[in-house]
């Protein structure tokens, strides 16, 4: 299996899609609704963006078609690699946030 870190950084859309699939399989519209729900409507993907991202994630073998169809709509799931990449990206973001917080705390001392 490829090193998950080589896929980083993910675009925000990719990150959100992986996140949407992390707890259950979803179809396209389901992903859109989940992301919109999680971001309180701030991020609402269009079909062009969504399927471009899915196509790319599928090509990188981070998500896969489940083969299940409900109402003729395909469902997608996270692959094991996809889950590892999601974890790696989350860690990367976490460390970045930690780093930024530390620096800002240091800077605050200079401020009036």
């Amino acid at each position, binding site marked *: 299996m490829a090193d998950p870190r080589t896929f980083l950084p993910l675009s925000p859309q990719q990150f959100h899609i992986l996140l949407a699939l992390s707890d259950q399989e979803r*179809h396209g519209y389901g992903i859109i609704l989940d992301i919109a729900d999680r971001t309180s409507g701030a991020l609402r993907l269009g079909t062009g963006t969504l399927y471009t991202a899915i*196509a790319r994630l599928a090509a990188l073998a981070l998500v896969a078609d489940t083969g299940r169809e409900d109402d003729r709509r395909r469902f997608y799931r996270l692959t094991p690699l996809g889950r590892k990449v999601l974890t790696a990206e989350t860690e990367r973001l976490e460390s970045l946030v930690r780093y930024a917080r530390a620096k800002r705390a240091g800077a605050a001392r200079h401020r009036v």
Partner: protein
Amino acid sequence: MTTSAHAPLGGATGPRRAARALAARAYAWAFACAPADLRAMYGDEMRRTFDAMADEAAAVGVLALIRLLVTESADILRARLTSRRFTVANRTHLIPGFRQLRQAARSLARRPSFAIAATLTLALTTGATTTMFAVVNTVLLRPLPYPAADRLVTVYESSSSATAKKSLIAPGRLEDWRQRSHAFDAMAGHYFENVTDTSGENPERLSGMRVTPGYFDVFGTAPLIGRTFAADEERFNGPGAALINESLWEARYQRDPNVLDRHLVIGGQTVRIVGVLPRTFALGSIDVWLPGQLPPGLFPVRDARFLNGVARVKAGTTLAEASRDLADVQRALGREYPRTDADWTVQLGSMHDARVGASGRPLWLVFAAVGLLWLIGVANMAGLMLVQLKRREREMAIRTAIGGSRIEIAGVVLHEVVLIVAAGAALGVWMASGLTALVPSVFRTLPRLLELSLDWRGVVFAIASSAAAAVLFGVWPVIGMTRAGATGLTRVMSQGARGATAGRHGLQTMLVIGQVALSLLLVGAASLFVETYVHLSRVDVGFSSDDVVTFHVAARWDEDRARLGLFQEALVNGLAATPGVESAGFVNFLPLTGANLRYQATVDGLTGPETGGALTAGARVISADYFRTLRARLVDGAWCPALKTDFTAKGHAIVNRAFAEAMGPGTRVVGRDVRGTFSGGVPLVIDGVVDNLAEDGPRVSSAPYLYTCDSAGSWPDPEYVVRTKDARGIGAVVRQLSKQLDPSRAVFSMAPLARVNASALDEPRLHAGVLAGFAVAALSLAALGLYSLFTLLVGERTREIGVRLALGAAPGRIVSEVAWRAGRLLVAGVLIGLALTACAERWIGSSLFGVAPLDPLTLGGATLVLAVVCALAIALPAARAAQVDPLAAMRRD
């Protein structure tokens, strides 16, 4: 696809259902734009997902549906523009650098206002400079449109007596020069003659040029079709022949190649069209070239000077060598004909200079102004760039922190610069091509406009200037920025980096000062030129052109003068007898039209200011009622006696006030005899003194002038003037009258005299207009630069301002601090601008009239305008500073 599997539209109303169906169709159109592989792999999915979204939106309302449709279409379009690399394989196809460019494009698309502002600024300034470059290049730099044009010269006679300037050439002398000189491949002469062609239904006036043998050999231009004149056609009494201009060929013969079988009828003589010359051949608008066919009897008359000389210098011979060669010939002629030739020498000049003439300096002036505008534009873009860099400081710092090299980081920004420059240059060239087409209608007085085009040099200029702009507004700030960026993330993240920001604002402050300075220069220059125009248009020209109409009636110089005289007499008298007409007359050259040949005059019994008691004066030939028609003011004596065709009676003359005063204060010239070359040495009696008319144009006041009251017919082709209350109807009256008297004559160039006079102000008006336009553009750009600088400054200090307001500082104090800072900047800009204006004085001084180049009132006014505009530009940022909400400001970050 239009029917959704689960459509919760049972209760939906008709319009909503229709909208839902329409939306599905519209999505299908937008979907066609999606990338092909995406369509193939996920097409059905996408449509189904859209259906689900559309159902949800339709349940909300038609507006929601429309909103969905718009965002979906945009989304698909974006996918099309930005994607194309959703398969791993595609990536390998990418050209190096292309990926970065696309990244840059996406990055710019996220900041459209910056991208648009920078691109438009570059496009506008590039368009304007490239257009002016095309004009300067065509008119001043490009060689004349003839083979080996640098060897073409103009040839004139020149009198060694100090006051007379260059003179036209007598045909006999030209012939001697041609035969005896060694430095020339060819030499010939021409004179202008407006002819009437009666081959068509109505007589038509054509502007013509008569040429001496070998004229076309001088230029070396081949006719488009046909040939130049044959030897027998150039001989006196030879068969008639004509070459016509491409424009006439097009307008009258629709470029018919069989035009060579056609004839013109000029002065009753049938003239065969033997060829067509390209429209760029002639300076101005010559319709037809005719062989001079000068009578042999004219050649011994060595005082009959009427030919403009042109010549082609032998290859390898300089202008000075050719001049010496011809001067030697003329010296020999002086010994041969001491009476007529001893006093004369030759004057050679580059034909390019002669044609481009006085338009050089004003053109360079406009070009310089456009260059300043370009500089201001570039400074503005640099300002915009700095604001952008400031905003992206964090991004850059993070890139540095995660190990991006300085080049890589600069590259991110430079790719954006490349995109902006490419788009700006392309737009600029496109604009320039449009503007270049407009130039001839705006700069009507410029020579060589027929040759005007935006050629490859123009495109190279646009690209080069854009590249220079890129270096100035892109590379320079980026280098400064990455230097700051390299010192690390910490400072930027802490937002307390006073040192770095101050330095960068220093650069931007300098840019704004520069903009203010250049704007002042342009606004000052524009005000000076506007004042010049106002002064020129208020000059007392010495006559009233209201209600006066001027026109021409075709006549040839070799016509029977007595017959012509009777015609002129009958026409003028007939017009004067027409109801509504106050008076009518004619003159050989109208005032303000720039005909300023000089002659030497002596008044019997008085001593003039020059050697031999002479006075150099301009001369005009007038009819009796000319001055009355123009309402010129009589100072002394009386007007000319009534117009008659009588070549035997003693001539009369009127002189202007400048002439009378030059003869000595207190002396009375009326009643005395005046003689000089203008009358062939025959004495004329001075009847009266007229107040000065602005003969040489509004800039030149009161040169001495002498008006000879000629017999009708002595000047065949004068400018007629009629003072009438019915300017509209006078055209028909003149044509009717002329037709009755002589049906073969064309009446042409009928225009109100006021319009003719106004055209004397075309150039100053144009300069004032163009410079005012540039000044307005410069002011707007400088205002924009100030606005963005202060928005940035206030934005940065929001927290500080918030704290101070919270601690009880008065908002007025905050505003006055901002204003103080702007004021200092403005003062610096104004001082530099005034210094620049002082340096430019030398350049513009000679083009001004009635106002000094450093006129304090004008420059003060310009400074005031600049100050007001600048105050407006900083008003919004200053107000914003005063309205900072302390709590919100401190909560930020």
